[in-house]
């Protein structure tokens, strides 16, 4: 029997942090090199640059009466590693990452791409609530799977 204050309907958010290192460039192939440099500045360097990315994955649910878990954080880590980190870590995302092909490799587009591969990989009943992605310690994006 759970202690009386732990009720079945308590919504808890649990976050797993993972990281990957990758190269990219910001480049719109429909524009000239000059226009790309004008808009994206040094991020358009055609020889690439790179970052240490930090990914925060937040799921939500009611802690199980049997385990006390919303979902086993170790299992969540394995799912993130197999579906996201192994695809992106030590890679060039413009060249090698399938879900970024045909897209400008900004962190905005990257976080949407990560959501779209991670969401279907989670077991039924595990609700993805939010992603937060740091490109540098000073720049990050958040995505909640929303359209407007």
């Amino acid at each position, binding site marked *: 029997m759970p202690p009386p204050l732990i009720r079945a309907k308590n919504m808890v958010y649990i976050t797993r942090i993972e*990281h990957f290192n990758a190269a990219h460039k910001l480049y719109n192939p429909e524009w000239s090199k000059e226009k790309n440099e004008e808009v994206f500045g040094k991020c358009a360097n055609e*020889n690439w*640059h*790179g970052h240490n990315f930090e990914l925060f994955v937040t799921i939500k649910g009611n802690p199980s009466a049997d385990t006390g878990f919303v979902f086993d954080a170790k299992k969540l880590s394995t799912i993130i590693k197999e579906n996201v980190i192994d695809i992106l870590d030590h*890679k060039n995302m413009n060249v090698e990452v399938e879900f970024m092909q045909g897209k400008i490799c900004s962190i905005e587009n990257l976080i949407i791409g990560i959501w779209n591969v991670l969401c279907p990989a989670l077991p039924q009943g595990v609700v993805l609530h939010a992603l937060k992605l740091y490109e540098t310690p000073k720049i990050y994006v958040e995505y909640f799977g929303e359209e407007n």
Partner: protein
Amino acid sequence: MEKEDKKKVAVYRKESFNAAHRLYNPTWSNEENDAIFGKCNNPNYHGHNYDLIVKLVGEVQAETGFVMDMKVLSDLIQKEIIERFDHRNLNEDCAEFKNTNPTAENIAIVIYNILQPHIPATIDMQVRLYETPRNFVDYPA
């Protein structure tokens, strides 16, 4: 007596740059490079946010109270290091690594050698370079 009054203090300036690189020894086969450098050898490159901490140890100047003016140090790092390496491909864009594998160790040595002539001879410098929040090197050791 006078010597005892001269206190040595360590001062630090932190800067950062983002760059692409790969670890590769051109005298080895691709198989050897893969065996030693693993995914760091990816021919399409990968990248990091590098954090650079420059440590200066010297006596506090009586006139200024400074070991070295931190604005001068910051401008020096910006001009000599950040403008050279930020948003670059270390292997492709930077002459310093034409014949040198851009490991954290070698990048730290290169940075030290670039900055050292600009630092007064009375000040000892050490460079700490973070390749990731978990991997970092010091030079000189």
